[in-house]
């Protein structure tokens, strides 16, 4: 059975929990997406952009030295970090930019956490000549300052959101408020497989290219399908993009890594599939971190891109059916994995992706099979340039004096309009 159904439900999840004012725009978007799926011109144009602009296909890297670290398991890295703008987010954004053009809209808005989706959106807007506004939580503008600068260089307006938790959730609230006000002229490019129908389905379809490529690359390289696919899960777009073409391959384990923050047992985390309850946030029903009254809980994660209380509805569906499994990975384990990958393979990945590596290591260790018999694909969803500052502090690579000086510079930057 294929999900979602015609009204966007993945079993008990998904749907459209939105103000009536947005329904017409969602219908328009669903129709545009449906038409595009079978339109050879649209498909050729997207294909052209993915190849000649985004740099697809991304390689599948055989990580030999990392393999030694795991007792000999064969670890293949799907290199979304090598896509233009440095993460998988560009796959979705190029698709939605083409739809924006097809719908005749000229203004685009987006939310962003780590800034990767914001950068990808700003990039596509520059390429297509759209006006672009990106909403970003104030805390995230601080911890991902490099990406704020990138977006501004690309001509986007970055709005720092100081309400609520000052992270991805509140950036999304502000983007939604902008959208209900300006929906006539504006397309909201949601950055993950979250939000009201058709977003979870549409974003999945645009990210599916990751899994389609990886499946063939793995067959070519190893001669068989992998034993597991491992990906980090914020909203869940890089994970579902990788998982999607393998859903019917029952021998392939689908393994998701959520942000465990200080540890799921402490309550300070961002792992709704591991420790949340079904609820409604930002337009769809899915697992959610919420209190007894249904108020959204504050999240904790070192990774801005995973620091979100909700998750895409298809992941909730896969969780309940048991087809995929999800585990919280602590900040400490993710950062340790980031360093291992850097030192064994010379790849500095995004902190989001580092959660997937940490989970790959623990998954391999949990198997009864000899690690040497295992083949695991890890989605390297993004590169780590944006995180160098956070990592340098974490590992104490900069002196207290240097930290103080850079805080001062940031404070001054913050004062400027």
């Amino acid at each position: 059975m294929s999900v979602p159904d015609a009204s966007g439900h993945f079993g008990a999840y998904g749907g459209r929990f939105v103000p009536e004012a947005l329904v017409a725009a969602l219908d328009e978007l669903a129709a545009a997406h449906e038409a595009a799926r079978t339109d050879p011109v649209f498909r050729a144009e997207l294909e052209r952009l993915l190849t000649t602009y985004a740099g697809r296909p991304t390689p599948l890297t055989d990580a030999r030295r990392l393999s030694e670290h795991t007792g000999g398991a064969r670890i293949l890295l799907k290199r979304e970090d090598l896509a233009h703008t440095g993460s998988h987010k560009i796959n979705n954004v190029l698709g939605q930019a083409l739809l924006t053009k097809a719908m005749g809209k000229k203004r685009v808005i987006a939310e962003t956490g780590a800034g990767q989706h914001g950068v990808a959106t700003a990039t596509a807007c520059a390429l297509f000549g759209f006006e672009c506004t990106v909403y970003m939580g104030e805390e995230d503008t601080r911890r991902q300052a490099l990406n704020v600068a990138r977006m501004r260089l690309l001509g986007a307006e970055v709005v720092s959101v100081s309400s609520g938790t000052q992270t991805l959730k509140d950036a999304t609230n502000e983007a939604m408020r902008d959208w209900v006000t300006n929906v006539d002229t504006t397309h909201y490019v949601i950055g993950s497989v979250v939000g009201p129908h058709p977003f979870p389905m549409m974003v999945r379809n645009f990210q599916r290219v990751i899994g389609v490529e990886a499946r063939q690359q793995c067959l070519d390289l190893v001669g068989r399908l992998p034993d597991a696919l491992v990906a980090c899960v914020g909203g869940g777009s890089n994970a579902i993009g990788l998982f999607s073409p393998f859903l019917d391959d029952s021998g392939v384990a689908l393994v998701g890594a959520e942000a465990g923050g200080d540890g799921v047992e402490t309550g300070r985390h961002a792992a709704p599939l591991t420790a949340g309850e079904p609820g409604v946030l930002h337009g769809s029903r899915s697992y959610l971190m919420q209190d007894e009254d249904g108020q959204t809980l504050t999240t904790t994660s070192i990774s801005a891109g995973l620091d979100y209380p909700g998750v895409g509805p298809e992941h909730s569906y896969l969780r309940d059916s048991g087809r995929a499994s999800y585990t919280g990975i602590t900040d400490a384990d993710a950062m340790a994995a980031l360093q291992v990958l850097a030192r064994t393979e010379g790849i500095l990945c995004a902190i989001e992706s580092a959660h997937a590596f940490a989970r790959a290591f623990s998954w391999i260790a949990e198997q009864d099979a000899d690690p040497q018999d295992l083949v695991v694909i890890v989605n390297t969803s993004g590169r780590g340039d944006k995180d160098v500052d956070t990592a340098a502090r974490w590992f104490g690579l900069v002196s207290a004096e240097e930290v103080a000086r850079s805080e001062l510079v940031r404070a001054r930057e913050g004062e400027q309009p």
Partner: protein
Amino acid sequence: MSALDDLFARCRGEDRAALIAYLPAGFPSYQVAVQAMTAMVEAGVDAVEVGMPYSDPLMEGPVISAAHQASLDAGTRQADVLRTVEAVAATGVPTLVMGYWNPVHRYGFARWAADLKKAGGVGAITPDLIPEEAPQWLEACREHDLDPVFLVAPSSSDERIAVVGRANRGFVYAAAVMGVTGARTEVGKGARTLVERVRAQTPLPVAVGLGVSNGAQAAEVAGFADAVVVGSALVRALADDGVDGVRRLSAELAQGVRTPDRS
């Protein structure tokens, strides 16, 4: 039969619109919110919408969002919302809850409908729920004889307005400006067009909310709608001038809906 039918019949008899006033429960405190709502009723408000504070109120502008957060920070819980309904319903005016879906979903909507009814509530306005997602909620409303009130917007097609008209009881809520809540300086003619479009699809009374903030605007909207809904302006009055401010503004608005401007 909706509990609101009497109200709308009476207003028609008096050749005026009804005034529906909104304040969030627990803002700035449980006690003061109840006093302010009571003052609204004494000043001539016909029905009260008790706002259920929520951490992520997507349809609210800065004034109401801040009030929701302040209410939550003051420790407001679901039980306090229902207690507020009970206190306001005791004044004798129809009392509804305006609530985002997740808190209701979390409470369990069948149990919530039962408890709302027990508290004396007559219905619930659900700004982020559309009829297509609500069959079980509609069932719970039928079982407990509550009015489900969904919204229509200027972007709604005629087909969708008809869907909402069939699902609603009591009245149809027309959020007549695209965007979040907040006081506006002009009524604009889009609201009138939307009301006409709603009337073509359903016999239910039409309530208009679009940021009305004074008596003159209330009179203008009363000229073409069955009810005028006021929210942000009352929240601001409460924040700035306390219960007396709410009483004064309510009296002015009540005067406005009694002198419909049909020019």
